[in-house]
């Protein structure tokens, strides 16, 4: 049985009259097992972009065929699965008729053969693909439902609202990891999908890297032995939940996904879990209490099948001792910085794209400083491909003249990846 552990990092002391409580709640899952072991059925849908651009160059469509095959190899026997080819519409690759097949040696071989034959042609209508996947998952048995979506381009050939409508219908039905191949796709489009569908987003700049990426993605999906967990948050009467933000392994503001379950309790979907840790930054504004009082600012629980598997208590203790109240918890400080880092990178790149180099320089300079201070080496490396750092302590940078578009996109998509705080031994 999977076990969850919840740990709180916070400075619980508030000065007289203070109301804002910040805490990082770290949730760790162990013994998750593998997909389908205990958590009901597993359903997987692989969506391959087969629009006309996938043939330009043809190495992309070839890589997509190979990647689909290795992903199929990772799906466990007995899982329900389908392969879709996406262009102006979504088309069944395997099985032939709309529905899911049960994975076996026979169906695996058939599906791989079919995936090896996909041809490109037509537009990129991702909303239609999501809708088709949703229809397939609606026929799937209860359990873990996961899709991989690959595209190389921006959405064309469907109504502007099609994606939003498709996402609204898909939310809560399945999780979706998104990959963009090449550099002609739009980071915001895929990020919108992966965020709504509790998945990841990343760039695969080089076609030859796609196979390994798909293999890893499907391996991860198969290691998720906990099909569906929710983060439950109780906050006291009269309080306001200011935000709940996943801060590790990546920044994701989950606040808008709150589902009110009772007057003082909201829940956030967190999708499936493998053996992993996720950190959440919780900010609650509580009614003030007199000095000397100790109250809960939040109860944070990890809930699977309506069972509380882990619980953390976020506290507020009012005191007149300034030595206690002025200290900021290192985890809260670190992740506040990491969230800022993601924010200034995304805004900086948007300004750069809009031609506002002045703003871009300031924001990306701030990013270089924050990345350096927090020891986020991956982000520093990605930033260095977009800017020349003049003075990292001061956050002074110059925009590079020649920047690979894919480097900018990599910085954008990976801006939300955070480093974990180094814990005191």
């Amino acid at each position, binding site marked *: 049985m999977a076990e969850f552990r919840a740990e709180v990092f916070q400075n619980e002391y508030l000065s007289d009259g203070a109301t804002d409580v910040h805490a990082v709640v770290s949730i760790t899952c162990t013994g998750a097992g593998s997909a389908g072991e205990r958590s009901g059925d597993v359903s997987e849908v692989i969506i391959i972009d087969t629009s006309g651009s996938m043939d330009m160059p043809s190495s992309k469509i070839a890589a997509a065929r190979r990647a689909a095959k290795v992903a199929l190899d990772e799906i466990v026997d007995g899982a329900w699965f389908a392969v879709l080819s996406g262009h102006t519409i979504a088309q069944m690759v395997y099985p032939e008729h709309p529905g899911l097949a049960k994975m076996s040696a026979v169906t695996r071989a058939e599906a791989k053969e079919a995936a090896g034959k996909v041809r490109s042609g037509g537009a990129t209508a991702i909303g239609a693909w999501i809708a088709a996947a949703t229809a397939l998952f609606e026929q799937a048995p209860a359990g873990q439902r996961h899709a991989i979506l690959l595209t190389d381009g921006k959405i064309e050939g469907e109504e502007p609202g099609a994606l939003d409508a498709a996402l609204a219908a898909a939310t809560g039905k399945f999780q979706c990891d998104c990959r963009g191949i090449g550099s002609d796709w739009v980071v915001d489009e895929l990020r919108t999908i992966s965020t709504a569908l509790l998945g990841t987003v990343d760039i695969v700049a080089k076609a030859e890297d796609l196979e390994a990426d798909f293999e890893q993605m499907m391996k991860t999906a198969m290691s998720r032995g906990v099909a569906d967990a929710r983060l439950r948050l109780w906050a*006291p*009467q009269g309080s306001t939940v200011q935000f709940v933000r996943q801060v590790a392994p990546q920044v994701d503001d989950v606040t808008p996904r709150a589902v009110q379950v009772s007057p003082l309790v909201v829940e956030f979907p967190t999708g499936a879990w493998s053996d992993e840790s996720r950190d959440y930054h919780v900010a609650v504004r509580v009614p003030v209490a*007199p000095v*000397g*009082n*100790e*109250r*809960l600012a939040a*109860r944070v629980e990890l809930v699977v099948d309506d069972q509380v598997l882990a619980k953390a*208590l976020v506290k507020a203790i009012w005191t007149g001792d300034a030595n206690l109240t002025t200290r900021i918890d290192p985890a809260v400080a670190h992740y506040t910085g990491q969230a800022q880092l993601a924010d200034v990178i995304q805004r900086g790149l948007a300004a750069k794209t809009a031609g506002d180099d002045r703003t871009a320089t300031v924001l990306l300079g701030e990013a270089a400083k924050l990345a350096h201070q927090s020891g986020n080496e991956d982000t520093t490396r990605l930033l260095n491909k977009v800017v020349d750092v003049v003075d990292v302590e001061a956050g002074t940078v110059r925009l590079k003249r020649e920047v690979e578009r894919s480097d900018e996109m990599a910085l954008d998509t990976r801006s939300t990846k955070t480093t974990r705080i180094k814990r005191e031994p």
Partner: protein
Amino acid sequence: MSNVSDRDVPDSDVLCPACAAPIHVGDAFCEACGSTLDAARSSGDATVETPTLGASGTTAQPAAQPGAQELGGRTHLLAPSAARVEVCHVCGAPIADDGFCSQCGQRARTRREHWTETPAAWVGGVCDKGIVHARNEDAMALDAAGDDFAVLVVCDGVTTAPDSDRASLAASKAACAQLMAVARPTGSFAARLTAWQAALGAACATANAEAVAVARSLGDPREPPSCTFVAAVVDHDLVAAAWCGDSRAYWIADDPAGSVELSLDHSLGTEMLAAGFTREQAEADPTFHTITRWLGADSIDPTPEFRTMAVDAPGWVLVVSDGMWNYASPADDLRRLIEEAAADGATGPTQIAESLAAFANGCGGHDNITVALARRDPQLP
């Protein structure tokens, strides 16, 4: 006399899970180390709690009958144990399993932070952490026999000395038990007065020895735990008080003209009053509370002073710590608070004591608050 037949018998088989010291069935926390004892917690009572072996130790029996109980001729006011739901002292909502309020999040008070004792219908008190202090270093021990004998002991732990909460609890319990065990003296009022002063002096010495023993058990810290001491013995028409420090005993007569401040603080404040300052001037001085006598290993003079009076009119024996009298020092202010509490529907000494403590908390609760009351009414048969 020592009518202690219904006191819990110490059970040497029961040991504190934290420090392995012997504990008594019904104890809310360990006398030796102060740990909260789950057994008492699970079988204790929401409205009548006691950390002692006092008469209400019967709350430890899960089968305790709800409502008023006749035990050895004494009335114990117990809330229904079976239906006990722990509620938040701030908002009244149920306390969740995690020990915090299900609505406002307030941490539930531990038994050491707030408890009441009601050894008889006419004797009761509350010991409360107050608001500002992190711990409740006050302690009380109350007991009664029949309808005309009671012992009220209050000790206020010195906050600046660590572990004073343990010293105050040990001191008050030992003194109370010792006084309850004294054979009630007979003879003339003067003879009884003399006997009770001797007994109170001995009880204070025992209390001091307990406080010193706590220091010993802690390896004689440089700042040894220490506490004040005040005890009142109600013996029919006689009230004898002894004190060491600035915890007080009052006689609060129903007749506004009849009240008496039995004790006189051992504090710089008293010295200032003696030097000619007004009470207002003296109490405004930050050194007012600096005590000149206390119990504990570093005490210079742990001997008590005595005051005995004859009671011939209805009223209350009131024993309080400074967390209470800080907000109502003159006897007449306290009399009005008692009157108001009764007017607001408080029935019995424990509820009235709770009302007084609530008043002190309403004023800021800057210190621990202990209020113990014994009702005397010579006109009643």
